[in-house]
């Protein structure tokens, strides 16, 4: 509504910003396309298109990296992390959202730390402690290490979801005859479900992607896909580039599938801008 439609300078500036943004997005997709193409290519030198297409790199990657076992371990770890994060995080978020107590701001800041501080910072000491206590290298250790950033993540994502629920809706459920348990089942759970699903799916994606903590705490039987991929890249030269590209594609597709599912349930920009909309109730 408020715009000065005559200013040529600001139009040019907006155009420049848009051009940059679009260029940026096109490049991102071009790069991903390049890897996908490479993983299917028989040979690809400096031409625009590879000489031919094949799926053999996928089979060789599958065998070479024991992708089957790797995927099973990855999903065991990931689902354990997701389940435990939800179980601890959601009730903690409820307590944080509904109670005011001295030092609440400080607790919130402390919860933010594991999300903002790079995982290496606490990953190395954490691994040291885990190895000292005999949990290093086990699947349990990897799960424990991964919970350090995911539990605060669930708490922080769920707090706005919970704050958005009018406490008077809970009061109404009580007045109309629901005790604590039935209020939880009939009112709180259905209202929180989208938020819980969204935050846990994002935890799932984060955990699949978590290299640092898993790398530092995993042993041979508790490696995840991403750690194996790093080892492959690090030890490149021994293996064909396309085989690594094939593995990267498997990894990328695995992550994206879950991400798409997550985004179906929640548009994450809403978490930030949600409050601009008038609540329906």
């Amino acid at each position, binding site marked *: 509504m408020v715009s000065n439609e005559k200013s040529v300078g600001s139009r040019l500036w907006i155009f420049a910003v848009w051009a940059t943004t679009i260029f940026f997005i096109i490049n991102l997709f071009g790069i991903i396309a390049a890897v996908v193409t490479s993983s299917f290519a028989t040979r690809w030198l400096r031409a625009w298109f590879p000489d031919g297409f094949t799926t053999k790199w996928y089979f060789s990657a599958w065998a070479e990296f024991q992708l089957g076992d790797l995927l099973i371990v990855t999903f065991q770890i990931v689902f354990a992390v997701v389940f435990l994060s939800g179980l601890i995080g959601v009730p903690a978020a409820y307590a944080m959202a509904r109670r005011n107590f001295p030092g609440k701001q400080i607790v919130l800041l402390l919860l933010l730390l594991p999300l903002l501080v790079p995982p290496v910072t606490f990953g190395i000491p954490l691994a040291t402690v885990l190895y000292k206590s005999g949990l290093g290298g086990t699947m349990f250790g990897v799960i424990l290490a991964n919970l350090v950033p995911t539990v605060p993540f669930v708490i922080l994502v769920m707090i706005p979801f919970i704050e958005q629920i009018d406490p008077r809706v809970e009061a109404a459920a009580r007045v*109309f*005859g629901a005790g604590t348990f039935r209020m939880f089942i009939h009112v709180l759970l259905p209202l929180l479900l989208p938020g819980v699903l969204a935050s846990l799916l994002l935890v799932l994606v984060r955990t699949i992607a978590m290299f640092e903590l898993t790398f530092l705490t995993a042993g041979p039987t508790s490696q995840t896909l991403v750690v194996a991929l790093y080892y492959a890249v690090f030890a490149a030269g021994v293996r064909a580039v396309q085989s690594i590209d094939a593995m990267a594609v498997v990894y990328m597709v695995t992550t994206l599938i879950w991400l798409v599912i997550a985004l179906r349930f929640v548009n994450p920009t809403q978490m930030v801008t949600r409050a601009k909309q008038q609540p329906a*109730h």
Partner: protein
Amino acid sequence: MAPSLSSFKTLRLDGVSRDFGTVNALRDLTLNIERGEFVALLGPSGCGKSTALNCIAGLLPTSRGAIFLDDQRLDILPTEERGFGMVFQNYALFPHMTVRDNIGFGLKMRGIPKAEAAARVEKAIETVRLGTQAHKLPGQLSGGQQQRVAIARAIVVEPPLVLMDEPLSNLDAKLRLEMRQEIRRIHAGLGSITIYVTHDQDEALSLADRIVVLRDGMIRQVGTPEDLYARPAHLDVAEFMGFRNRIPAKLKTRSGDAVAIDVNGVLLQGIAREEFKGDDVIAAIRPDDLFAGETNEGGIPAVVEAMEYRGRDFFGSARAKDGTELFFRASRRHAPGETVALIADPARLLVYGAAQ
């Protein structure tokens, strides 16, 4: 287990109090309410009216006192076992349930058989005239429709007591008028007790059988709307009820409630509302009852400062010799600076002690 509508006669609040830390938000609220009565708790924000309502509903524990429905003590029961109906300020509908499920929630929680519950829900939907909206979610309804759903949800359980917490404050002026009549009609049909919390005098005057004026957590006056409007017991209640003029005066004579007072040398007749200490008094009168006459006979002389047109009449502000600002009614626009004589209706000039 929940108290049932069929039997009770009286709701009795006996010294109900609530402290927040060292603050006494509600002090010794004692009140008997008969079946069929519509009682409004009226007061400015922070007067304790919402605290009182939440204590009665059980959403806040009381600090002292007791609540009885006939002989059954209610304040020791948890909220969900009191069996009241409540209409919340912002409706507090369950956003994930349809209108029908929202209304039926209370019946479901009480374990009413499905067929009976469905029939009662349909009847409640009819009572609030929401037939075509029953399958929608609250978010798809207008403010007035949501308000109706909230009312239907409260009355479908046929509670002995319906609590309403400023239910109309989020609606626009036109809808507010319509919903007032709706609430009155539904209350009459239900035959239970309604306790209605509001800060709006017009709402309390037009709806209630009895008004309880609260201030600082204490009862200031209990009375019919006519009592409150014409005969506020204290100066603060009078100000709250629209007695915008507050004129310092000297007491001249008093016989019974009829008094004569001196305002800037002009002798006025009025009605005393309390005992005075000394002869410093405050006269209170509505701008409506202070009229700028065409003659100077018996009026308070004052210099017009501003006038505004309100349709039928003009209203203005003027300043008396001693600096008191006076708000008055007039039949024409007086020019700023003009001196007018403001004539007070003696039956509507109330006199209070100044020491208060």
